[in-house]
């Protein structure tokens, strides 16, 4: 029962979604199913928040290594929740209704936290990507074998083809042979080899999605539902 009922729900919903793709009359059912998922996800968000608090409180109370980070996380979570729920610093749109302002209105405490704490932190994390791209490229482009050498050559051409240096270096090539310039070769590599490879992968992914969906609908693979017993 523990896995059968969830599987039945998944099966019925999945069949409705497939049906709605081909039967226009079922389009509303599809929207209903989407709304139900949104509802479930919203309820689960409360579960997630409770789990977050429980995990970090446990860590703080047992003074585990790194409990200070947990304290910072909890304080940040509670402060953000408080200023968002109680609209701290929000100026009411309608003076007769003191709660009428938007919780993210400019100048509010939540807006301030978002603009001056959250955004810079997210930006800093994203900026790390630049360094990681450089280190990954350095490792990937080492000519260890034939395949790696081909990759290195292709990367070299594409990098040059995307810069002015590439255009300048092959500027002497006549227009009739423009495909042999760095920009021309770059266009061929990206438009032919890269696109062909990407599409092959995407066809495989689409077939994999179809097969996995079918396994879920038929209940062939119920690993994600756990076991029958407690």
């Amino acid at each position, binding site marked *: 029962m523990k896995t059968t009922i969830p599987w039945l729900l998944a099966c019925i919903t999945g069949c409705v979604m497939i049906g709605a793709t081909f039967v226009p009359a079922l389009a509303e059912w599809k929207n209903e199913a989407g709304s139900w998922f949104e509802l479930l996800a919203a309820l689960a968000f409360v579960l997630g928040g409770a789990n977050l608090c429980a995990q970090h409180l446990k860590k703080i109370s047992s003074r585990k290594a790194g409990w200070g980070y947990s304290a910072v996380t909890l304080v940040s979570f509670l402060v953000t929740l408080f200023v968002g729920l109680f609209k701290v610093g929000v100026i009411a749109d309608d003076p007769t209704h003191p709660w009428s302002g938007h919780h993210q209105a400019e100048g509010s405490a939540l807006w301030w936290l978002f603009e001056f704490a959250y955004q810079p932190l997210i930006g800093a994390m994203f900026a790390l990507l630049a360094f990681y791209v450089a280190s990954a490229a350095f490792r990937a482009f080492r000519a260890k074998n034939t395949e790696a050498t081909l990759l290195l050559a292709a990367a070299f051409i594409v990098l040059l083809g995307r810069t002015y240096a590439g255009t300048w270096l092959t500027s002497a090539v006549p227009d009739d042979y423009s495909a042999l310039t760095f920009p021309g070769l770059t266009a061929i590599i990206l438009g032919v080899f890269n696109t062909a490879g990407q599409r092959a992968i995407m066809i495989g992914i689409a*077939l*994999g999605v179809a*097969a996995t969906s079918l396994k879920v609908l038929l209940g062939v693979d119920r690993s994600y539902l756990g076991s029958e017993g407690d």
Partner: protein
Amino acid sequence: MLRNRFAVRVARSPQCCQSFSRNILAVAICSFVIFIWLRPVLAYAQDEPATVTPPKTIIAPPSNLTATDAPDDAGTAIDLKWAPSADDDPARKPRVVRGYQVYRSLADGSDRSAIARLASGAREFTDNHCQRGQSYFFEVTALGDGNSESEPARLEQPVRSVVQWFDTKRRWFGVIVLVVCGCVIVFTEIVKSGRGTYIRPIAGLKAIQEALGRATEMGRPCLFVPGLRDMNEISTVAGINVLSHVARIAADYDATIEVPTSRSLVMTAAREAVQAAYLAAGRSDAFNDDRITYVTEEQFAYVAYLTGYMVREQPAACFYMGTFFAESLILAETGNSIGAIQIAGTNEAAQLPFFVAACDYTLIGEELFAASAYLSGEPHQLGSLKGQDAGKVLACLLLVAGCVLATLATLFPESKEVEEALGYLTESILGRRGT
């Protein structure tokens, strides 16, 4: 007495004359000032009739208005077509027709309202807000300057929107889905009947045992990241399926597995899957649900938690199975920097190069979806892989047919048959109309 009075009147007469002439002068000056002041107003008043009520331009109305039920819809749309107004000529300056106004009313003529205002040159419109089964009248007028309108083009009979029970534009898509799903079911049954099947070895999946064994030997935990998406994504379901097998091996080896999630529903599903795996391994006592936690739904906050965990706890093996975006490289590079064995699989084609560059093994494309069947070794699951292969054969046949037709269309540009066949393949079977 009379004489005296006359004498007085005569004596006053010069003063009287002076006063009279002063009054006349004052009246004349005032009249002049008033005239000067009022002149522009009078001039405006004289001009006003010419500017306010220009000779009204009569705009030719649109004609031949037809309305039909929109095909392949849920009974909420009606297509309108009309011949544009004779005055709707782009070459004519200034333009006489500025646009068209569409009106809709119920079959009894009530509830008439303007539902759309279209640009000049418009010849058709689809009303997507009809009620299923309701009959409507439509009118279209041409609009000129100053909101002037032509006589309307009217429908003679009301039109009703009707629901269609099959979207014919997707018939080929339906055929392909039926063939692929049919192949999956047929091959599943064939393999279940006991016929052996060969599944090519997937290096990334074979390495899972090696990675977990290494983690056990080193006494370090394993990190499993099920991606950023929720349980409504099939890639996340595939990731959780892989997790259940990884957890089973971890339970056998007594390795510790950590699963930080970015969605509450994923956390719940992951707990169920890992608990079931520990139970199946006979190690239910070793299951600790505190190791499967919810972190945050924010992409880079989640990344910050994961990279922080990696640097602090130094997991011996990292698994990334699910949907990943820009964070893929940050995670994989951090894992690489701590020397962990890394195995990744994602359905995001754009992230695969990053995983290939930074991870030891990468499940490419459909391998993520095949992983669960491969790891389980169950015949009824392995059959689905054969079904996928049949789908690939179908895709290859369509690709070859497309390439041949495209080549023929280039070699014989005058051939209408080839052009039509290519158009049918690309537009109806594979193209937008088929999706």
